[in-house]
């Protein structure tokens, strides 16, 4: 099963603030609804989702039953360093979902010519 979709700019330059979009495969069962046979569907929502860059947390969201199924999260990040981005989420059933992305941050173009 597909776990998540990530949209991130293919190139980012040092100092840029860029947008990240993450669409996660999760039913976010609220525990309030019943299935077609009238049986209550047990609650199972993502407890937390975090994004780390080189092991450092750069984004966290703690959704509740109030977030839609197959949740979408859009947030921003300032480009400071290249490295491994890890998206990791845990739900009520202690299932761990993960998505990795290799972030490449290019050096900003030097606008001043060197020397005189």
């Amino acid at each position: 099963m597909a776990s998540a979709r990530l949209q991130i700019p293919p190139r980012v330059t040092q100092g840029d603030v860029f947008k990240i979009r993450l669409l996660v495969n999760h039913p976010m069962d609220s525990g309030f609804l019943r299935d077609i046979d009238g049986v209550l569907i047990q609650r199972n929502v993502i407890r937390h989702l975090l994004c780390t860059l080189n092991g450092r947390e750069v984004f966290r969201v703690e959704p509740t039953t109030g977030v839609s199924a197959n949740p979408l999260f859009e947030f921003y990040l300032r480009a400071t360093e290249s490295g491994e981005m890890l998206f990791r989420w845990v739900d009520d059933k202690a299932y761990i979902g993960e998505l990795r992305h290799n972030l490449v941050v290019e050096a900003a173009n030097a606008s001043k010519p060197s020397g005189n």
Partner: protein
Amino acid sequence: MMSPVFSRRQSIAQLLKTVLAASMGTFFSGAAKAQVDKLTITGLAEARLRTFEEMVRPYVQNQELKKEGVSLSLPMLADNGHMVPLSLKIDSPMTDAEHITHVYLISQRNPVPLMAKFVLGPWSGRADLSTRVRLSGNQNVIALARRSDGNFIYDLQEVVVTEAACVDNG
């Protein structure tokens, strides 16, 4: 696997229940308005709308709260309460000295008042966010942001949530 088909008896019983609840609702007196409808009867929404105070107090406590700097964007009329696009923009330099630390999305009627909590910092660069929320009936939604100085700013928007005419459990 057959879907449940409403019998005439069930339909009449449901109608009577709704009429009874609605008439009870008109007699309800108190600081907060009561809204009785199918969502309330089935336990999917609170009968009494939360007050503004009840919604923000758990987070703001004794800190300063101002309605500024936050721009919450939701449709005025949502097609369906299961998936309502929500986005917000916050005016903040997001520097080490001055940034947003947390953003709370709070519902007035959902069974669970807090819809999501976001943790940000100067590394975020921008305190703009988007997601999709569930809204259980017509209500106000609050986006509450905590600043690095400990004070809070917010925005509020009213959303009307329409429902399908044909009702079923799916």
